[in-house]
Structures are given as structure tokens and as C-alpha cells.
């Protein structure tokens, strides 16, 4: 995206939420343990396409990339992921209720 035309730099920021910090930690720890490389994460981010940048927030894109790499590494199956995401949703309507099984 270097060199492309774009508007003023948005200066507003936010403090990171727990789910964002957890994604950051998963990214670092899985990299340290050799489950994927940061290059693998970047590749998955790029493969999401340019419009992913507009549609999803930073850590939303990163958990998608982490998950993509873990699936490719065979750490868990798509079936396991789908079942667990379904189970998580059943725990309650907020992150606080759903965050620990």
C-alpha cells in the first residue's frame, strides 16, 4: 500500500481489549513454538485481500491469519474449530460470559 493516495491520518486511538491482547499473545507464543512464522501470518493477511483491511479491525485480521496458519499446520481440524466456535456462542451473548469454557 506504500505510495497509494489516501486521506488524512486518523489520530484517534484506543486501548487494547483483553481479546485483542490475547490474540497478540497467541501470535507471539505460537511463533516462538514454531507452529507458524510471522511470514506465514503476513502471507495469510495479504491473501485476505485489500478489502479485508476496510471491513475488519486489526486484531480481527490477525486472528484470521493465526487460525489459517494453525489449520494449515494441522494443529486442529476445521471440524474441531467449527464445533468449538459453536459451543462458545452457546455460553452466552457477551465476551465475558463466553471467554472461558
Amino acid at each position, binding site marked *: 500500500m*506504500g*505510495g497509494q493516495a489516501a486521506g488524512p491520518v486518523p489520530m484517534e486511538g484506543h486501548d487494547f481489549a483483553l481479546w485483542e491482547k490475547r490474540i497478540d499473545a497467541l501470535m507471539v507464543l505460537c511463533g516462538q513454538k514454531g507452529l*507458524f*512464522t510471522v*511470514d*506465514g501470518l*503476513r*502471507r495469510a493477511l495479504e491473501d485476505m485481500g485489500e478489502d479485508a483491511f476496510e471491513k475488519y479491525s486489526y486484531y480481527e485480521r490477525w486472528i484470521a491469519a493465526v487460525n489459517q*496458519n494453525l489449520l494449515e*499446520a494441522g494443529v486442529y481440524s476445521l471440524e474441531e474449530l467449527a464445533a468449538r466456535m459453536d459451543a462458545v456462542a452457546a455460553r452466552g451473548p457477551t465476551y465475558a460470559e463466553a471467554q472461558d469454557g
Partner: protein
Amino acid sequence: MAERVRVKALTPPGHVRAPWYLRGKVGVIERPLGAFRNPEQLAYGLPAEEKPLFRVRFSMRDIWGEAAENPDDTLDAELYAHWLEKVDHHAS
């Protein structure tokens, strides 16, 4: 004299760390950085060989031409040796 290099103007699909806006541009080696595992292999979970990495300095004039905001400002980027080709001082 500083070594002049051109970033290869290649456009393969897939994960590459040479930014688009520098492809085909000429700069000078600012410093060697040592060898690092090739991200183009790491990105696909493959065993990766170590490749020499350089910091290359470009003038804004050489990147953006007439559209440069300030021609004498510079841009440094890290580029792998396999993305660089030597520029002959006697040729263009």
C-alpha cells in the same frame, strides 16, 4: 563509491517483502544487514535458506520522479539480495 542497485521489476504472485513502489527503482546500498531466512519460503511453511539482506537508500526523486514531494529526501528499505541487480555505472 556507494554500490548502486536496482530492485528487480518482477511481479510474482504470493508473499514478497520487496514493496511494489520500489520495484524497478535504483538506490545505493546503505549497509549490509547479514543473512536471514528467506521469507518467501517461510511464508509457506517451507524450510528456508538464509539470504543476504541489505538496507538500500533511494532518493525520493528516484522513486517518484517529478511527483516527489521533496526530491532530495530519502527512503531506506530492507531488500534481499535476490531482489537486487547491480547497476553498471557506465550504462544508464
